[in-house]
């Protein structure tokens, strides 16, 4: 195809819009409602063009190029139309530019500057639509809204949340929510705002803003540094704006894992780095008697303990950088007597060490299989990538997830294996594929691998999981019929043995035959993949008293899950040395505590869900006296007359490493009314430091489907007793549409100690059945006073 735009001839392959063609030809057409990440709407009429032979104006963003087309983008008529459109927009837009948070990056400001007439013929008449939304994080200032509906489209098409809509009609049209309710409220369920902030980024004007960053700095002030999100393993790239030593704004930037998206935690949760409660000097003494000490004193104390220990183990968080874990390994090997290195939150991930698969592969797939739990809350950007890929390529989507986490409803097939039944379902799939679709598959399955799973006959598996008859075969048929299948796995408590990564890897190998079977897999922490490659998975082997335990960044006492053996080990240790930024539960149990810098204050790398290693850049300096983990460890080593040496601890097979995880899989037993579905703690100590996030925490509740509650004569707010095996829990119950009928979801808040003890209970019955009972009046009174 050949087109002429403003006299420039270009040839291109269709289908393509005039707007795209013009951009390729280097011709600038002003736009406002158009945005590359969302569908085309054609609402603002700023991109009007003239096409030879057509005697009316056309919108460049909605007009497809045809061969031989001659387009004009800058004529007196067009200039006048643009000016009029801007005049009309501005007469409904308060000119608050001097105090507007968007100042400096406002598209309307820019368009007005470049295209508008010097004077406005219309009286200023802003709409009467001031909105006060009590929800945290997102401020809606509808008076400034230019009705481009980019926010509506991004919330719907990209985030899949669909909480925003273009309400009313004509002059009264405005962006709003269902019955003008707050962005996150019971009214919106099950499509509740997740405060991803995508609408804030995409809003061309100051109609959607971050409540948290307001008046903390103009967009151009301070310094902006590119880094990586320190929360989940999606690995979103972030830009950190720092002004006068304070992190004032975090926004996502274009990255291979996240495109240009982030989530609540990456965008707003990073505010924790400003918390004043952090540790800035070493502390000596345990549990409440911890007092600041000078660095030499602390080093002397720690060195003495190390020198006197028979055995010592180093436990690292999967949230540390690869470089920090490396330093910890060098220290463990060269300095610690009988030293070992272990990482928490890497269960099952050793299987995937060294392999990688880019998120882009989703766009080459004809079938995407999601095996996981609740992307929406914990790794929403993974959900975004899947949703966008399916939208672009029309790939099929299969979701295996007990909870209704948006993606399920968008899938062609959604199976809801209850409780911890996922590995059983995957084993069934693998077995069926190997047996009945063997000719289609490139490699044969490993019998001994499968033999370790209970279940067997598909019918039996289906019955145990309460799935419709024939669903395993149906699943296998759909998978076998696809040419390029990409699996996306997700850590969740449904997989207590950590067998899902190896099952997915096996499935992938079976289907691709490449021997590099590698699903996209979301570990529990931002660097789980990196940590798994460098250290053995916790918890440590049970034999022998631990003597000395060193923990860097890891908070097994605070996260309570699934580390009860680890927690036990810490409490039994003679001496505990902790390196951390905040006084976590684990840090409180330390005999000596050394401060660490936050993610914004260090360099290093995280290995994300795709296996890609990404660089953190230092955006701000740590408080005086706070140095890197490596520096602290070097100081300790040199006081013992030693030095860190690479290779002193054989990688991947540290002494005392546990044998590889045996694939398990539990059978939920029938008969009991409910199966327990364990949630994932969203609110680690960092998120808790962000005050505004409090309303997002589930609080001390258990959740169940409204239909189940109705059947039991219960309603939201009633107190219930959850009994499973020998343990029980009294909590308020909350109606929750995301929880499947027949199950009870424990949101699992680490600050809720009783809940943590209940879900961490190792003696629980197979498959984890439970009963749910309403508390009688007297009992309720007792239960409530206990809650306080």
């Amino acid at each position, binding site marked *: 195809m050949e087109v002429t735009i403003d006299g420039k001839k270009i040839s291109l392959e269709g289908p393509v819009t005039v707007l795209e063609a013009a951009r390729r030809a280097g011709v600038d057409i002003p736009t406002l409602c158009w945005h590359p990440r969302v569908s085309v709407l054609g609402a603002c009429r700023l991109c009007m063009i003239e096409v030879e032979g057509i005697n009316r104006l056309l919108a460049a963003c909605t007009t497809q190029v045809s061969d031989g087309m001659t387009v004009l983008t800058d004529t007196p008529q067009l200039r006048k139309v643009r000016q009029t459109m801007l005049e009309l927009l501005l007469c409904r837009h308060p000119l608050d530019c001097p105090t507007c948070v968007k100042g400096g990056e406002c598209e309307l400001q820019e368009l007005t500057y470049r295209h508008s007439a010097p004077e406005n013929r219309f009286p200023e008449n802003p709409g009467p639509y001031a909105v006060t939304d009590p929800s945290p994080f997102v401020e809606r200032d509808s008076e400034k809204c230019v009705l481009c509906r980019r926010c509506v489209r991004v919330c719907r098409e990209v985030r899949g949340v669909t909480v925003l809509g273009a309400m*009313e009609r004509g002059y009264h049209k405005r962006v709003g929510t269902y019955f003008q309710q707050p962005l996150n409220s019971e009214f919106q369920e099950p499509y509740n705002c997740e405060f991803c902030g995508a609408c804030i980024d995409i809003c061309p004007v100051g109609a959607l803003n971050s409540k948290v960053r307001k008046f903390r700095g103009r967009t151009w002030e301070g310094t902006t540094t590119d880094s990586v999100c320190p929360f989940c393993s999606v690995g979103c790239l972030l830009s950190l704006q720092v002004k006068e030593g304070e992190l004032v704004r975090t926004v996502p930037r274009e990255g291979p894992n996240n495109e240009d998206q982030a989530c609540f935690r990456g965008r707003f949760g990073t505010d924790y780095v400003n918390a004043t409660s952090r540790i800035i000097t070493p502390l000596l003494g345990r549990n409440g008697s911890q007092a600041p000490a000078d660095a030499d004193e602390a080093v002397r104390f720690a060195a003495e303990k190390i020198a006197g220990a028979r055995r010592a183990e180093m436990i690292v968080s999967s949230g540390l950088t690869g470089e920090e874990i490396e330093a910890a390994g060098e220290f463990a090997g060269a300095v610690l007597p009988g030293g070992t290195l272990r990482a928490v939150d890497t269960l099952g991930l050793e299987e995937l060490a060294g392999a990688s698969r880019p998120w882009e592969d989703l766009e080459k797939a004809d079938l995407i299989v999601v095996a996981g739990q609740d992307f929406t809350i914990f790794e929403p950007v993974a959900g975004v990538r899947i949703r966008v890929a399916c939208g672009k390529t029309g790939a099929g989507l299969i979701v295996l997830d007990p909870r209704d986490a948006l993606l399920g409803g968008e899938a062609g097939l959604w199976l809801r294996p209850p409780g911890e039944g996922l590995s059983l379902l995957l084993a069934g799939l693998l077995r069926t594929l190997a047996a009945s679709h063997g000719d289609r598959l490139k490699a044969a399955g490993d019998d001994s691998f499968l033999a370790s799973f209970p279940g067997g006959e598909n019918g039996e598996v289906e019955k145990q999981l309460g799935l419709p008859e024939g669903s395993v075969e149906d699943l296998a048929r759909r998978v076998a019929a696809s040419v390029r299948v990409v699996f996306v796995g997700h850590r969740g408590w449904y997989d207590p043995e950590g067998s899902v990564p190896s099952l997915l890897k096996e499935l992938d190998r079976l289907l691709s035959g490449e021997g590099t079977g590698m699903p996209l897999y979301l570990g529990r922490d931002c660097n789980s993949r990196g940590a798994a490659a460098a250290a053995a998975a916790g918890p440590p082997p049970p034999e022998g008293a631990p003597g000395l335990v060193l923990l860097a960044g890891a908070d097994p006492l605070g996260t309570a899950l699934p580390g009860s053996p680890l927690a036990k080990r810490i409490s039994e240790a003679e001496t505990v040395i902790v390196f951390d930024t905040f006084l976590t539960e684990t840090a409180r149990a330390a005999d000596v505590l050394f401060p660490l810098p936050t993610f914004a204050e260090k360099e290093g790398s995280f290995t994300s869900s795709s296996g890609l290693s990404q660089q953190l850049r230092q955006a701000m300096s740590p408080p005086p006296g706070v140095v890197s983990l490596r520096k602290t460890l070097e100081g300790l080593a040199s006081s013992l007359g030693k030095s860190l040496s690479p290779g002193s601890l054989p990688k991947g097979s540290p002494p005392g490493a546990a044998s590889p995880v045996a694939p398990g899989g539990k059978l939920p037993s029938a008969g009991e009314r409910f199966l327990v579905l364990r949630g994932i703690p969203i609110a680690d100590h960092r998120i808790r430091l962000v005050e505004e996030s409090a309303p997002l925490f589930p609080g001390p509740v258990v959740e169940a489907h409204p239909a189940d509650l109705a059947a039991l004569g219960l309603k939201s707010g009633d107190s219930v007793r959850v009994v499973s095996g020998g343990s029980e829990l009294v909590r308020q119950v909350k109606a929750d549409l995301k929880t499947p009928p027949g199950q009870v979801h424990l949101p699992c808040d680490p600050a809720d100690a009783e809940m943590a003890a209940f879900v961490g209970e190792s003696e629980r019955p197979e498959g984890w059945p439970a009963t749910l009972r309403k508390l009688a009046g007297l009992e309720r009174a007792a239960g409530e006073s206990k809650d306080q």
Partner: protein
Amino acid sequence: MSANVQVIPESTRERLRELFERFPRKPDALLTALYIVQEDCNNLASEVLDELAAVMEMPKSIMYEVVTFYHLYSTKPRGRNIILICQNLCCYLRSSDEIYQAVYEELGIRPGETTEDGRFTLETAECLAACERAPAMMINEKTFGPVDPAQVKAILKKY
């Protein structure tokens, strides 16, 4: 929020099930579904839409977009007879505001309001597709126009 009481009665749900059979996907039947539910439940208040959203399996914000776009749907309790007066350009230029005033003088209600006896609800309309008869007014399913303010009283009497 009570999960136990159904606002949309079983008979209406049955009508909806019949409706859905004629469409490939439930959301495609939204306009008619809303109409049916409003007919049976008088209006589309949040309690009604909450339930309908669950039946339709669609996001509430999209339903609310549609409900607020068409003035035939109401989210508030309505009178037995609905008066619509067009306020769009043709009607406006031919003094539709005087029709609003005449209705107010006769019934004491402004747009969005309902008479105390529940006989009439007055609503605005963006277009009644009767520009050639501007200013136009509609009561229930009957259109009047061009309406002279002096005729309003007589027209209302019939309801």
